[in-house]
């Protein structure tokens, strides 16, 4: 397995404050990697740095090509879809327009129409509400929409920022099941940021533990989940 996305010595700053202190991370092609840690550890910052939303130092390579310093718009064009914290819904636009926007940079219009139907097949509730203002959807539906919008890109890498946040357990299960199936069928590499460590360890195959901007532990989820000391110290269960 080769590293699809490789991060080396990543540093990021918010004004004077350094948020990431030289962080290494590998994303396996077609794998699911979880990034775990407490509030404020820098998980979201890692995702933002990778997709160019904030400026960062260090090396970020996608398929061996450096993408550090690229703008968000250009990183998206390389097939990196980011489902941001807070879901990034276009609240005044309809559900279907939100999905169309996900495929904005694609030129194959016919395939896009097919992909919208595919998202509807995954999330039938979105189809029922396709002409509704997206802001009127429930939190769970908006999360589905955010995932659906990301899928519309036909991404090669998906960055997911706390997709379980604020959702009922049943909805979480539904969303993660679909993520898993897309990960399998499309060989999308997934980088998942989660506070719900138990959930993430079950879903992912590799995990990194992050604490105040540094990686303190990494390995397969099986190994990390089995180690009681790590669970107690870092994951709180």
């Amino acid at each position, binding site marked *: 397995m080769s590293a699809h996305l490789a991060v080396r010595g990543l540093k990021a700053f918010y004004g004077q404050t350094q948020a990431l202190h030289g962080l290494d991370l590998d994303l396996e092609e077609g794998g699911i990697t979880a990034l775990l840690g407490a509030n404020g550890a820098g998980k979201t910052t890692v995702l933002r740095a990778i997709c160019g939303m904030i400026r960062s130092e260090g090396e970020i390579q996608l398929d061996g090509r450096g993408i550090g310093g690229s703008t968000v718009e250009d990183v998206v064009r390389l097939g990196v879809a980011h489902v*941001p914290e807070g879901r*990034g819904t*276009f*609240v005044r636009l309809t559900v279907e327009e939100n999905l169309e926007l996900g495929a904005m940079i694609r030129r194959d219009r016919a395939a896009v129409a097919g992909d919208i139907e595919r998202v509807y097949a995954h999330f039938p509730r979105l189809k029922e509400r396709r002409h509704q203002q997206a*802001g009127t959807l429930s939190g769970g539906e908006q999360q589905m929409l955010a995932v659906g919008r990301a899928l519309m890109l036909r991404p090669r890498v998906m960055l997911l920022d706390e997709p379980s946040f604020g959702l009922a357990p049943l909805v979480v299960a539904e969303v993660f099941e679909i993520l898993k199936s897309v990960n399998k069928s499309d060989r999308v590499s997934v980088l998942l940021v989660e506070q719900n460590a138990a959930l993430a360890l079950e879903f992912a195959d590799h995990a990194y533990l992050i604490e105040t901007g540094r990686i303190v532990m990494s390995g397969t989820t099986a190994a990390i989940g089995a180690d009681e000391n790590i669970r107690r110290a870092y994951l709180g269960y």
Partner: protein
Amino acid sequence: MDLFLHQLLAGIATGGIYACLALAVVMIYQSIDHFNFAQGEMAMFSTYIAWQLLAWGFPYWPAFAATVVISFAGGVAIERLLFKPIRNAPVLSHIVVFIAMFSILNSVAGFTWEYTIKSFPSPFPSTPLFGNRLIGAHDLGMVGITLVMLVLLYVLFRHTRLGLAMRAAAANPDSARLVGIRVGWMVALGWGLAAAIGSVAGMMIAPIVFLEPNMMLGILLYGLAGAVVGGLTSPIGAVLGGFAVGIIENLAGTFIPVVGKELKLTIALVLIVAVLMVKPSGLFGRTAVSRV
């Protein structure tokens, strides 16, 4: 009754002017979320460009088209040169630049073409259409052109991917970037469109109020009133609002003795205040609904 009909039609005619400018105001408000104080002066400047082209001997419609294209490019250039560098600056900085643009455009126009009043030709025949004498051909043509622009904008925003990208970029720039939309260029495009619409408004208005650097001062106020009445987020609301302001202004000026000619301008302000108090999103503006 005859007087009422007369004033109603006259109201629609002047309403067409306001609707034109209200449309330009809404366009730029949509893409930058601020009200552009210099909108009227941009339109005035475009009209001078058209006047210059006509003075050089171009026929009307080629000069019209060239002015629209030049204005579009000028609008894009203004965004790229003036507003892109201060994109993250506070609102006040934007307002200061708007005011600077206002006085620069006003003075440069006065310096280049002098402050004397010039007449500007209408592309429409001077004889009344359909043998009626209630509404002039130019007024009708102006209303028609406003409606054509409205339809074109509607098609652009509702039925093209570019329009969808522009709406997304205006509503939620961060998310728009995350789906790959080049937000900066969408804003520049919004400026270009607003400048182009403004140029059409200017060329339609100039035959009525005559061309001079301050021609847009009062009209911008009415146009803004129209935009506020209709809702700053709705192009169709802006056009209807513009017509409503024109009609109300004329009828009130005629039938409410206190108002008369002197207090007509006040009506625009009263309308703005009234609408903002009763329905801040305007008659047609969409209130964003969201769950928290």
